[in-house]
């Protein structure tokens, strides 16, 4: 199954509406099943293997393609720079700190976050939990793209 095939599976929108002929429960079960399968495979396959790379590529690609195909949140949701700049600043600082540590050595003396998280990301249970959290975040992003209202959720 390719990322494009997965992306064409309909996803429930924020109002609970569905398009297509399949039942809502079947659709939700399909996505849940794909997520659990991906989490199980990633728990079994360690990082730096073809299997783990393929799972991330296919599932991540499917969710990304599905998100880009959706209309997105209403454009009436507008924020002033004073509202989003603090979050952008923290995000950029985190990215720059991670990059600096990668350039300084990417070793035990100068460990980036990915190395500090090694004990978790190398253990099967840790990989399972992290994968489920990652997929839940992807599902949340998809639901936000299906929003029809500008009110906070």
């Amino acid at each position, binding site marked *: 199954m390719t990322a494009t095939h997965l992306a064409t599976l309909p996803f429930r929108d924020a109002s609970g509406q569905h398009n297509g002929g399949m039942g809502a429960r079947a659709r939700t079960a399909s996505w849940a099943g794909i997520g659990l399968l991906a989490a199980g495979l990633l728990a079994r396959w360690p990082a730096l293997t073809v299997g783990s790379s393929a799972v991330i590529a296919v599932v991540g690609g499917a969710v990304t393609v599905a998100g880009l195909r959706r209309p*997105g949140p209403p454009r009436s949701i507008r924020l002033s720079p004073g509202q989003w700049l603090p*979050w952008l600043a*923290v995000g950029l600082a985190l990215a720059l700190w991670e990059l600096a540590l990668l350039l300084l050595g990417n070793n035990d003396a100068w460990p980036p976050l990915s190395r500090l998280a090694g004990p978790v990301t190398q253990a099967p249970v840790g990989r399972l939990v992290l994968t489920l959290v990652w997929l839940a975040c992807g599902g949340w992003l998809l639901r936000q793209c299906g*929003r029809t209202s500008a009110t906070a959720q």
Partner: protein
Amino acid sequence: MTSRQLAELGFVVLAGAAVALELRAVLAIGRHGPTTSERPVRLGEALTAAMASTSGKVLVFGWWWWLGWHFLAR
């Protein structure tokens, strides 16, 4: 202080800043109500607003995909 402790401290400070921003927004919701005008916003609200444009969606989904790749695949 060793270089490793300095690296860890950097992540702790940034995580603390993110928690402080989220808490400030949650407290502001209690004072101003759920509308996002004229109050600090939560991370989810900032991400949702960013995804209102196609380029924003590309950035947000690309960032999410990269996180999975960085921590689970490489």
